[in-house]
């Protein structure tokens, strides 16, 4: 059984009571101080007026949009068709279809990405050992037909779509 606290005398009770009340009010003023700083600084507002500022809108760094495969100026990507991203994907979003080139090496044929199944978790990007894929910043991804949601990322005409 728990020991009961030693009985405090009246003076101790009063001092504890007054101290509790004063520190309570002091902490309240701290909260008031924070909110009034937000109120008087309109720059702290983080809401975006979206359709109006569409031209200037910058998505923040950690935003995760659709999957994107960067290509260099020669139209080459870093993908080796190893298939680790395909195994890392929990939803079966990615299909890496490999082919063989003239020398008989395994190279990427088609990198199929199904946007309709993607949850933008980013596990594929983390799994990729070559940095061949990234998550884009675009979020206006609505289309009129679900067939348009299956992209082939390593073909330049398809990567242009939405990237």
């Amino acid at each position, binding site marked *: 059984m728990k020991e009961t606290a030693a009985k405090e005398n009246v003076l101790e009770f009063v001092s504890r009571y007054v101290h509790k*009340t004063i520190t309570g009010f002091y902490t*309240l003023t701290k*909260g*008031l101080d*924070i*909110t*009034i700083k*937000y*109120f008087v600084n*309109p720059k*702290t*507002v*983080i*809401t975006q*007026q979206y359709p109006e500022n569409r031209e200037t809108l910058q998505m923040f760094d950690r935003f995760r949009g659709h999957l994107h495969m960067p290509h260099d100026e020669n139209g080459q990507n870093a993908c080796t068709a190893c298939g680790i991203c395909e195994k890392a994907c929990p939803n079966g979003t990615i299909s890496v279809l490999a082919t063989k080139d003239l020398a008989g090496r395994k190279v990427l044929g088609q990198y199929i990405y199904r946007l309709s199944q993607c949850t933008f978790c980013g596990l594929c990007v983390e799994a990729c050992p070559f940095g061949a894929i990234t998550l884009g910043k675009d979020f206006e991804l609505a289309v009129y037909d679900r067939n348009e949601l299956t992209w082939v990322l390593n073909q330049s005409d398809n990567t242009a779509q939405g990237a």
Partner: protein
Amino acid sequence: MMSSVEFYPVNNPIGDLVRSIFPEPVAVLINGLLALLSLMALVGSLGAVLIYLERKVSAHFQLRLGPMRVGPHGLLQAVADGIKAIFKEVLKPEGADTFIFFLAPLLPVSAAFLVLAVIPFDHHLQVADPAGGVLYVLGVSGLSVLGILLAGWASNNKYSLLGAMRSGAQMVSFEISIALLMLLIVMVSGTASLRGIVLSQQGTLFDWWIFKLPFLGIFAFVMYLIASTAELNRTPFDISEAESELTGGFATEYSGIGFAMFFLGEFVNMFVSACLVTTFFLGGFFPPLLGVPVIDPILSLIPGFLWFFIKAFAIIFIYMWFRWTFPRVRVDQLMYLEWRIMLPANLLLLLLSGLFVAQGWAG
């Protein structure tokens, strides 16, 4: 104090004009109707203004922008919301008491409306000035508790009933603090008429009761703010609505215009409460004269009712600041605050100010 009554005439030009045109009994009727109409216009417009203000102020406290779409900076949002509320279907739950269910939303607004009748907005802008104005205010503002209790009871819903009971307990408790603080002001100013209380604060800024009463005034002011926040059922004391616990408290079953009336009543009551704070502590319609010969005449140029509204809206801003900063307290914490902190402090304050009055230190 008597000289100030002569200095500021109670009559206003519109009333004098009506009295000069019409015979006595008709003039009284017309003047009364005009006064009521102006109060109705005030209540109606205040609802829209305060709801817009609350949404904007709360948004900026929370790093948001608030309504921006309807009209420039969302100015017409309140109009759009009002139209929506009017056209919505009014639902009544099965087993609810029809008469009381539809009577209840009217009571908080009527309470605010009735209290507004005795508020001195300016020297000659007061509908009535009963000698016991403070008593009248205390009595009539009880109607809003009644409205909430009736709404909870008539809704035939456990959440409504719980919310109403909590609200009843809360408002009855904090009414004691409010009454004791009003008593303090009545004691130091020597009159219970609201106009008389304002006139007793004539002079500079330091003649207002918040400063005039050495040390005690500022304590009384802060305690009045806390008690009236609780009386208004606003956060941090909004346990009667407590949407995370009671889905909406007494207003759960109300839709459309019934809910809008509760909402309007809440906001107009906030304005009334701010008016009372202004009257009791902040010198009502008197300009904040500093005793500096250069600035004082400029400050006096601004009409009294503008000063009154500036002060009242400053108090409303403080209420909103409280609401969007503090988290909600629990029921037992609320009762602890009233009965263990506010009430003893109140009684001590009353005792000390009695001593001050007896020694002639207060004003």
